[in-house]
């Protein structure tokens, strides 16, 4: 039996307005090289100046994972030649990272498992190479060059692909709560390299480490790990040696292929960045960052369970995404029954978002609207079925359901006079069913109700409609039962 050992390197783009060492904007998707200046282009003679916001956000993240924060902020140059790296060195941190020795507790089998975080450091992102299909030339877009990145490196504490997935989900949740990054893997603002090795169960030493790159989603991380574990297990069972190497995940073929072996690994010739003077990180700055930490997902989950009597599962789902949790709490303020709100969010809203491939932040939905919707149901203004339609309308158009109802069309017909007129029309149009009713066939009544609902496009209040039809029919075509009843009454 083999034990899997996984460690992760997560690169997080900080969503600061400007780049790490210059004043250029960081907007995603701008025309190539439109967000550049002499500094991030690496022109001769330029110098970097540290973005204070990026530095403070780095400390915020470090504080959230309970790291020890370095006494001194020091940068180093990591040197290698590549066309997307304008200076041919990356300003990064080597021997004195911003933070070390943190942790994140993840739920594993109903219990908390502590995953240690080895280090968090601040560095600049590289640009992008563009290979146009109809061109043989490669183009360089340096908009991304100099965007601040935090690298978050875990200790090799993860043991399964499920744990790894859970770690990523929880890590992302914390980062979202900190409001320092869009954490969008598709846009590359969150990237993940996975290190995996296998060893005989109980062995102390780690096996040969394989790094997997090109992982574009958490699912890909999980799939790639499962593939790698299978591949390495088979190899080990055949007494083969595992090569220490970097492999690429192929998301189409669902397998990893070798990229480069560690023997050819680059010597980055790290040395202290002479253009940035190391400076003391004051205890005050660290304390302030700790004080200012928002409620984090784990704390919020516990509070949701306790204050709203939600199940661990519901609380977990709702707090995974800060926007979702905010939506829930906002709605509870308007409508004080947490469970139905949780159900609507986890049911209809999730389904809608999945179907439209949207994130909760993408839809215009005010928390109180959810409360209004539930109030309308309680008041009997709308039926459960109508509520579902109204919900779709609400998230699609971004309008308060109370407004939608007023706007007309959707409000239930509860007006007695209106119902009476509809009943008369239905009775007149369906003589056979009326006869059947008179002969005591109760499903004839149900048929007539159905016809009335059809004619009103479901707007009639079904209970009221039934009552109305019954009353009308009894006047003209009393059933035997009805006669009996009358006799009993009299």
């Amino acid at each position, binding site marked *: 039996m083999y034990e899997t050992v996984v460690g992760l390197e997560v690169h997080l783009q900080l969503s600061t307005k400007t780049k790490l060492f210059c004043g250029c904007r960081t907007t995603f998707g701008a025309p190539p090289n439109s967000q550049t200046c002499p500094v991030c282009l690496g*022109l001769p003679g330029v110098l970097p100046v540290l973005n204070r916001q990026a530095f403070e956000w780095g400390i915020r993240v470090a504080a959230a994972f309970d790291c020890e924060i370095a006494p001194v902020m020091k940068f180093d140059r990591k040197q290698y030649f590549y066309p997307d790296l304008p200076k041919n060195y990356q300003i990064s941190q080597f021997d004195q990272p911003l933070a070390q020795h943190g942790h994140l507790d993840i739920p594993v089998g109903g219990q908390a498992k502590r995953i240690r975080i080895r280090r968090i450091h601040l560095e600049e992102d590289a640009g992008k190479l563009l290979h146009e299909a109809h061109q043989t030339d490669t183009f360089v877009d340096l908009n991304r060059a100099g965007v601040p990145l935090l690298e978050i490196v875990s200790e090799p504490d993860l043991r399964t692909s499920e744990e790894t997935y859970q770690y990523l989900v929880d890590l992302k949740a914390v980062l979202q709560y900190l409001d320092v990054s869009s954490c969008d893997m598709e846009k590359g603002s969150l990237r993940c390299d996975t290190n995996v090795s296998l060893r005989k169960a109980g062995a102390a030493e780690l096996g040969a480490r394989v790094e997997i790159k090109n992982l574009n989603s958490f699912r890909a991380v999980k799939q790639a790990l499962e593939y790698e574990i299978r591949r390495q297990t088979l190899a080990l069972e055949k007494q083969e040696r595992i090569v220490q190497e970097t492999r690429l995940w192929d998301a189409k073929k669902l397998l990893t292929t070798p990229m480069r072996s560690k023997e050819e690994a680059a010597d980055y010739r790290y040395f202290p960045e002479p253009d940035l003077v190391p400076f003391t990180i004051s205890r005050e700055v660290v304390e302030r960052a700790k004080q200012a930490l928002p409620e984090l997902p784990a704390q919020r989950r516990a509070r949701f369970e306790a204050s709203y009597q939600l199940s661990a599962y519901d609380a977990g789902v709702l707090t995974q995404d800060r926007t979702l949790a905010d939506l829930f709490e906002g709605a509870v303020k308007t409508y004080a029954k947490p469970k139905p709100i949780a159900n609507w969010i986890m049911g209809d809203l999730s389904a809608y978002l999945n179907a439209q491939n949207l994130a909760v932040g993408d839809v215009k939905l005010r928390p109180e609207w959810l409360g209004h919707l539930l109030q309308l149901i309680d008041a009997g203004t709308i039926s459960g079925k109508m509520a579902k339609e109204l919900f779709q309308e609400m998230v699609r158009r971004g309008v308060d359901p109370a407004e939608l109802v007023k706007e007309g069309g959707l409000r239930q017909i509860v007006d007695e006079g209106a119902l009476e007129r509809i009943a008369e029309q239905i009775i007149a149009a369906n003589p056979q069913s009326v006869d059947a009713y008179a002969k005591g066939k109760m499903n004839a009544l149900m048929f007539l109700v159905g016809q009335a609902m059809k004619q009103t496009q479901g707007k009639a209040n079904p209970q009221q409609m039934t009552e109305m039809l019954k009353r009308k029919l009894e006047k003209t075509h009393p059933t035997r039962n009805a006669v009996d009843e009358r006799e009993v009454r009299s």
Partner: protein
Amino acid sequence: MASGELASKTIHELLDLFEKKQASSEEVLDDVLSRIEQHNPKVHAYLESPDPDRMRQQLRDQWKASPSGRLRGIPITIKDNICSTGVEVSCASRILKGFRSPYDATVIERLRREGAVIIPRANMDEFAFGSSTENSAFGGTVNPRSKEGDARVPGGSSGGSAAAVAGDLAIAALGSDTGGSIRQPASFCGIVGLKPTYGRVSRYGLVAFASSLDQIGPLTKDARDAAILLSVIAGHDPRDSTSAPNKVPDYEAALDRLPKDVTIGLPTLPSKGLERNVEARVQEAVKVLGLSTVPIELENIGQSIATYYVIATAEASSNLARFDGVRYGARANGGSLMDMYLDTRSQGFGAEAKRRILLGTYVLSQGYYDAYYLQGMKVRTLIKRDFDEAFKQCSVIAMPTSPTVAFRPGEKMEDPLQMYLSDIYTISANLAGIPAISICCGSDADRLPIGLQLLAPPFREDLLLQIAHAYEQKANWPTLRASLRVPH
């Protein structure tokens, strides 16, 4: 006024003439331009001849922009490693040939703000690697103090800047000093050269050689001009994280306020290769100053050159990595990306640049870092400490700027170590980050200038300038200067 007379003036003399309406800035510019036209083909202080029309236009613009600036209408040249908008900045290297900067260095902004007229592109050793300006990819510079038929180098790497000032092809100049590149050419050319405290002048826009050692500084005809120029270019710059927030005094106003209790420290120096004339003139100059002296020890100064060539080349190898043909400058058309890199850099860099890149890459390599770079940083700290200790006993330290007078072209090109030794007295100030000045204190039998170097604690440029100014008065500088050759 006779031709060449205005060009021979100092900044403060010209400002006086302007004030008294005895000369106009147009006349000064024309005089300087005509001297450049006449003498630059031989001296080669400039990499390109300035276009007279564009220079005159610049002068008119400057007058309009800053009619009362401290350098209004004064033609000042800049070393070809300082960026100026729209101007070619090649660092005298083929790899940057044709590169025009889209931005101004901070020092350029400050010169312009005070009304200076900037004459671009003073020659230099390629990327400031050298002590003779012979490493310029576009041909060396001749020392204007040379005897006819016995050409000497102007020193380096700011040889073009020094030669322009000494040869009256500019009123003053800016250079850069990483291990002596302002002071040694100032010494060879018989002018004043000041390397400010590390962080005193912004490096933004100076093409980096060794980031932790580089400083921009003035090369001028006398101490007062150096004080004026330094007052203009010094000061904190938010674009340079290594620039110091310290207030900038008015160095010129303070020139005559030399404190009475100044003590000069005289260190025991490695004397191998020190010319007797140089030693004698420097000793005399200290006597002329008439200040009290005290012997001092700089225990680790003998390690300066070794330390310097580890740290400076390490940083240079990294700083020069960006010259790869991808974004700007020269690009060789290789087949693959790797071929393009290799060909561009093989063809673009000269021998000395390659030597230093290799050296620097080596000392930073895995397995060698601790033995070389880390060790170098430790020795650097020791050297800094030596100066801290010394300045407890003295106000400034005096020593020669260079062990020799200007040597002949080719004399040291075959032996890089001999060339490196040319900087033996200047390098330690860069390693310690302290300010140092070189002033002319006479000449040898061939009338080749000799430089006295003074070193002060951090941010005591005021003291250096006061002493330099005092020396010029006591030694009758105008007469001394007149004894040095100028091309006619």
